[in-house]
């Protein structure tokens, strides 16, 4: 298993190199002049030029790239012009908020999607199958930020069930002691039920807004895969051996049907990383998505670079995790690899 992991890590290196190059070029291709922004509206031409030189922006592109690589090797992602803090520091401080939100959104999507998919497959063209189709289509049609606004309108403004969409905790709670950075986990570790409830209330709507969008692909893949597996010989054989319906559906069919679903989860997660940016903005969520958007609006290169690179790394890590998960579910993969 360790050797497999090492091999997979090594295979991920070219991807990461690609991420590094693309982030560099992407940031340079963005419109706007960071030196001008940094100097402020009242600055003189000389001041702007001075800042440009200080930032290394007056040098040729390849030199800038080498400087960039050197800084990366030192773990220096640059300094955010907006916050005045090192980007690495900002991102590490904000990443847990994004990760918690995205993972919870994925968990919500996977739970709902797989359940709906299985139920739909057990009675194809039944009322549930059709209902599932409608919900799934709607989920795909509505962009996550719109779903987010809709949820806020209904559950906060109209019904008053949800707290104000203003970040990770209500005004009366303070963050739990830092262990994982996930407030839900840390508050439980600290035995602080009040903070846990507050964190859960705050995260529920954004996680659902994010997840709804991903329910559809997961449900559709689960349904199709489950239908195919339920029609296969070994399911008929399992029934011929008298295994209970529950055993046949869950232990035999679903586990086999999950293989393509796990693959889809990886793809869906990358959608979610993208949708995250807007959902964070809507819910004033202090994650890296809203951080990147704010930086982008003022041509603050370094945070955008750092954000894209973090996303790239996360995506590579995620694919690695999915590979390993696949191996756990399917014993045949080991041989094929």
């Amino acid at each position, binding site marked *: 298993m360790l050797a497999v992991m090492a091999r997979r890590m090594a295979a991920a290196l070219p991807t990461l190199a690609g991420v590094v190059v693309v982030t560099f070029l992407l940031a340079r291709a963005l419109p706007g002049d960071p030196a001008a922004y940094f100097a402020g509206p009242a600055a003189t031409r000389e001041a702007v030029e001075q800042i440009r030189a200080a930032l290394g922006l007056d040098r040729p592109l390849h030199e800038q790239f080498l400087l960039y690589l050197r800084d990366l090797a030192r773990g220096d992602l640059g300094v955010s012009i907006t916050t005045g803090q090192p980007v690495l520091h900002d991102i590490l401080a904000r990443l847990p908020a994004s990760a918690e939100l995205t993972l919870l959104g994925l968990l919500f999507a996977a739970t709902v999607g797989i359940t709906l998919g299985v139920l739909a497959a057990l009675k194809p063209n039944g009322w549930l199958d059709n209902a599932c189709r409608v919900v799934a289509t709607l989920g795909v049609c509505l962009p996550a930020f719109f779903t987010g606004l809709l949820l806020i309108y209904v559950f906060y403004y109209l019904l008053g069930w949800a707290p104000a969409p203003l970040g990770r905790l209500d005004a009366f709670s303070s963050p739990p002691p830092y262990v994982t950075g996930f407030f839900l986990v840390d508050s439980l570790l600290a035995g602080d039920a009040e903070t846990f409830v507050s964190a859960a209330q705050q995260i529920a709507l954004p996680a659902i807004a994010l997840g709804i969008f991903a329910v559809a692909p997961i449900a559709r893949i689960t349904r199709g895969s489950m239908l195919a597996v339920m029609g*296969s*010989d*070994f399911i*008929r*054989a*399992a*029934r*011929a*051996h*008298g*295994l*209970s*319906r529950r*055993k046949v559906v869950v*232990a*035999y069919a679903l*586990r*086999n049907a999950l293989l393509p679903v796990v693959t889809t989860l990886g793809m869906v997660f990358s959608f979610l990383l993208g949708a995250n940016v807007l959902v964070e903005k809507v819910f004033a969520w202090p994650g890296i998505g809203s951080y990147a958007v704010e930086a982008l609006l003022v041509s603050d290169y370094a945070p955008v670079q750092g954000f894209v690179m973090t996303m790239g790394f996360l995506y590579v890590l995620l694919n690695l995790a999915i590979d390993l998960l696949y191996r756990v*579910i*399917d*014993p*045949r993969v080991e*041989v094929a690899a």
Partner: protein
Amino acid sequence: MTDAAALAPAATARAAPPRVPVLDVAGLSVQFRTRSGTVHALDEVSLQVHRGECLGVVGESGSGKSVTAYAVMRLLDPAARITAGRITFGGMDILAASEREMADLRGRELSMIFQNPRAALNPIRQVGMQIADVLVRHGGVTRAEAPARAAALLAEVGIPDPVRRAKAYPFELSGGMCQRVGIALALACRPALLIADEPTTGLDVTTQAVIMDLVLGLARARGMATVLITHDLGLASEYCDRTAVMHAGHVVEAAPAADLFAAPRHPYTAKLIAATPQPGRALSDLAAIPGGLPDLRRGDLPACRFLDRCERAEPGCAVPPLPRHLSEDGRMVACRHPL
């Protein structure tokens, strides 16, 4: 009949007079509704199997052998409809049983071995676990005892190093080994009836004989009734006590295996024997059977579905009903002009 007695067919068979069949299929008709019309897959199929007996069901692909087997297991496709007939197993009316009663019966009293052994096993579950699942479901075996029992069963079907093999996945085993696992699964709870649906079709010839000897050896040793479904008349004549020949959803002839092979009465049986390789006869003597099965979606199927392929056919053969002559020597032939 009380439920308790219905669920213990072996006991019933012992108490009852010896000629009460374990399985009695009477006048079974099955249709499939498809987009291109209704398929009349089975038409008044009748079969009996007694305790300790092996019945061969022989016919070409599409003759309804497997449909009959799945009807007995009550595992027919949702598109299938049983339009007539009765299936009695150990005194229990299979067609009237609840889904729960069937699930209790399957794998415990009524078992099945499948055609493609590897496809019939869960690809991502260790074979020992799959046997354990069946044992825990029916055998009153706890999860803790199950692995040892599963290994013992694997040893019984002649798998060497059973403790290690129990941890293997189907893709790590040969076809023959997979079929042994299939046999172990089917026989785990000592069923009263075993249906073997072309158990050797996907295997090479040497493995075929080994598997057949294993299945029928175990069946005889346990006094099980066995239904061997095969397209191979030679195989049926070698291993079975009685043989039923199926053609296009009809049982056209049923007789003790030796009699059937020595003196077929239905023209189709005769042609089937002429098409079966035998020792001492050149392969060039094999006679192919002309024509194919009639389209079973036709609304105007003739009474005898073989008449298009039959030299003895007369216009009268198409007129229903299809005669089913029973003779004193225990033979049945469904033909107006038997040989």
